[in-house]
């Protein structure tokens, strides 16, 4: 067994680039040997820890470490990709040759513009307290406080699970066109889920808070408060009646339904889907696609939000992209490959789950901006309908815009007032139609819970948000006759 020197810095807290820049240069040159036009090296070093508190005790503490490199080579429309956890110069050269093997069609091949990235390739974490610097006892104390707070909320609470998780992801991206950029992404998450038992069976309530920050998350977030909210949600649902079945007006609470826009139109505005004719929004730029007053933004620069990034996974700075402006479709989201084909700049939306994955167009933080109506007036102006305090996950058929998402907390609206809680059910609708059917937009914008967006088998962290708003008619998938 051959022992060779690893090119990755052994300590993830060290300041050097993830891969020595001379090795980056050599690897990219190797990748273009066979005739590829463009080559990219993506290196990643990810560490994570998690603590699971269940049934009143620490059930499990875990930690993980992953590091590796993915090499991408393109020639025309063909992309070759190879990934390896062997970070030696020989391992990277092997991966470069494997990636290049399929992308060989151009004459002469591309060149590596190495000079422009000398001195780059490093990034410092912007977080105040790295979670790795926090003792496990402090994490356990927060979890225990959440457990006790949830159980003391109501005697019907029979089970509590609390979890805290943090991750640090250092990346280096370099390509033969001279991009060389790095990022150090730290995320911290805390969640509580409770089970309440009553005569009608079991009900659940969940709360999650997560930001692209370190342990300073808990400067402003009290896990006990979070736990009590989750517990109250479960207890409230014990008295819930079956949700209605059919089309009704739906009011969605601020921050509780950004996933609607993520699913209903966000995915359809991803340029890879548009280009293949798999989006209902193809050829619609400049058209009225939403009600007047509706402005939809995807913003990767958005402070500490869950989907925030300094650069995307192709090395391009993230930015604020206005997708729909006052109801008119203004632009799609772009990665490098799709923007190259369209002769335009990428929008900082090229993302990948890990070094083993090809990047593609992904959202970051996607939200609808404020309207000007008092949210109380929206409810008072709704004679009958459903008030959704919190939506769960969703799914969309991008070709039609048909989507579903779960209501994890919802109430009836009767005579302009929020009344009885409803059991869980899915909402189903059509994205383009819903955008046109927004007939009231509140002035109380808030971001929602941290989410993980899945697309073609890859999951990435995303954020969403919106003010209180009303959709004229959505189908509620309940069971009430």
């Amino acid at each position, binding site marked *: 067994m051959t022992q060779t020197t690893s090119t990755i810095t052994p300590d993830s807290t060290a300041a050097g680039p993830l891969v020595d820049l001379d090795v980056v240069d050599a690897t990219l040159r190797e990748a273009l040997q066979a005739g590829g036009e463009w080559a990219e090296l993506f290196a990643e070093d990810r560490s994570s820890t998690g603590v699971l508190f269940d049934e009143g005790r620490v059930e*499990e503490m875990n930690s993980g470490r992953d590091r590796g490199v993915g090499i991408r080579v393109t020639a025309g429309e063909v992309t070759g990709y190879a990934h390896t956890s062997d970070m030696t110069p020989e391992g990277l050269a092997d991966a470069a040759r494997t990636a290049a093997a399929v992308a060989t069609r151009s004459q002469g091949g591309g060149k590596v513009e190495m000079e422009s990235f000398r001195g780059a390739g490093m990034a410092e974490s912007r977080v105040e307290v790295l979670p790795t610097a926090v003792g496990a006892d402090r994490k356990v104390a927060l979890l225990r406080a959440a457990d006790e707070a949830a159980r003391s909320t109501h005697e019907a609470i029979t089970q509590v699970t609390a979890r805290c998780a943090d991750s640090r992801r250092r990346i280096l991206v370099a390509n033969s066109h001279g991009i060389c950029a790095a990022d150090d992404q730290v995320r911290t998450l805390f969640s509580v889920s409770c089970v309440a038992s009553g005569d009608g069976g079991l009900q659940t309530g969940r709360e999650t808070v997560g930001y692209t920050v370190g342990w300073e998350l808990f400067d402003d977030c009290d896990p006990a408060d979070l736990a009590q909210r989750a517990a109250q949600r479960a207890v409230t649902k014990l008295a819930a009646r079956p949700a209605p079945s059919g*089309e009704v007006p739906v009011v969605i609470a601020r921050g509780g339904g950004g996933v609607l826009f993520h699913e209903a139109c966000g995915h359809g505005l991803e340029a890879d889907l548009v280009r293949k004719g798999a989006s209902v929004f193809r050829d619609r730029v400049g058209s009225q696609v939403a009600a007047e007053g509706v402005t939809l933004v995807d913003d990767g620069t958005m402070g500490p939000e869950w989907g925030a990034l300094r650069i995307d996974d192709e090395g391009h700075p993230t930015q604020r992209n206005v997708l729909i402006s006052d109801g008119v479709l203004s632009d799609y989201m772009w990665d490098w490959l799709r923007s190259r084909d369209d002769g335009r700049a990428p929008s900082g939306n090229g993302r990948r789950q890990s070094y083993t994955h090809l990047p593609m167009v992904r959202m970051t933080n996607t939200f609808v901006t404020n309207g000007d109506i008092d949210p109380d007036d929206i409810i008072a102006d709704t004679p009958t309908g459903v008030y959704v305090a919190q939506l769960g996950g969703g799914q969309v058929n991008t070709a039609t815009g048909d*989507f*579903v998402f779960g209501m994890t907390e919802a109430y009836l609206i009767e005579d302009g007032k929020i009344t009885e809680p409803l059991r*869980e059910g*899915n909402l189903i609708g059509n994205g383009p139609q819903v955008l046109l059917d927004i007939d009231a937009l509140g002035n109380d914008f808030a971001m929602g819970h941290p989410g993980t967006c899945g697309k073609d088998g890859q999951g990435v962290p995303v954020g969403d948000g919106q003010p209180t708003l009303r959709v004229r008619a959505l189908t509620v998938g309940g069971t009430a006759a």
Partner: protein
Amino acid sequence: MNERRQHDTDELARLAQQVCERAAGNEQIEVCVSTGRSTTVRAYNGEVESLRSGVTAAIGVRVLDGGRQGFASAGSLDPDVVADTLEAARRNVAFGEPDPHQRLAEPDGVEPPGLDLGDPAVLSVPDSRKIAAAIDLERRCLDADPRISGVRVAAWSDGWSQSALASSTGICVQASTGSCSIGAQPLATDGDETQIGYAGDAARRPDQLDVDRVVTESTESATGQLGATKPPSEHLTVVLAPSVAAAFIGVVASVLAADSVLKGRSPFADRVGSVIADERLNLVDDPTDPATLGATNFDGEGLAARRNALISVGVLDGFLHNAYTARRSDTASTGSAVRGTRSVPGVGIHAPVISTGDIANDKLNASIGDGVLVRGVSGLHSGVNPTSGDFSVGAWGHRIAGGELAEPFREATIASTLQRMLLGICGIGATAEPLAGGLSMPPLVVADVALSGV
């Protein structure tokens, strides 16, 4: 250790055992190690769009001490990483809190089924044939129906993995497994309307992939939705197509895992021996049938995989257990530990099988008179609450009128509870139809389900 050099499973087993031998005092150590290689080819417009390949390695170390558990994992088998991972698991165990039932699995004397699952056929497929398979799949989808206007994804994937699991309680098992798969997402267009379909298949050997079925199902799922409208809301009888029945049964199986039962999160706790489903329903987990990709010789803790009856004639036989849930329930593991190298063992089903019924599949529509045939569902992850049993998912398919298939519908949901749906089964097809991965499932008929649309 240089990962360009492939490990064989004996080497992996030795590595796992060497780490286990470092157990000190009352420590118990379990080590799972694996290496893998994979390729994915996507075709578009008659040529290769992307070819992605890679090699991976992983280790997961679980340390138990005095009923406390710690776990650590890493994506490398370098000796320094292996040592670091053991130390990280040991650090983590210090903060666990004792549970007297939390000990590693002990050898239980049950013989593994002795399946030969490591068919190396996928290793001998050259990249050129993988590319040809993806391009051919795209072309066949385009040729299948004049309304197919494009194919968003036509893909071939394959993988080969080798793994070993050892523990300080004397377990040491190893496995090599290969698989390959194809999948297509065709687009069907009629005027201004575009619909997208999907179908896929997976098998241990390339010659077992059913390309014809994937082409037919994926294109028909796209064209079948053209012209579909939102149906009126009503309670009615639904026929679940085999793929939808499989998704439903998968959800049912998840709530029969003992971990959710023990933690008060299953609607079927305390129901063993009781009727929880219509008497037509017999559900077993059978990982011993080598025809399915769910087949395995060992579970995630190294115990022999075995056939487990879960529901017989509508009566709940019992739950699926790993070593921990079994010890806590004063019973034996059912060999149902499921895990990846990078996670601690949970409890889950390997290969669900239900008995076929007595109505010919092509007579099911006639048997119900009026209702709907559900051909696809969406939002399973968001619309099913496995604790309360509330079930509400997006659905598309066809109406059934006078026993005949009628107009298509979409943008609707079907809703009930798992409890009511199991008791509401009122017909099972006589033939189990093949699904991806060697599984097969008959269509199911369920009465009194809420269809929500207009």
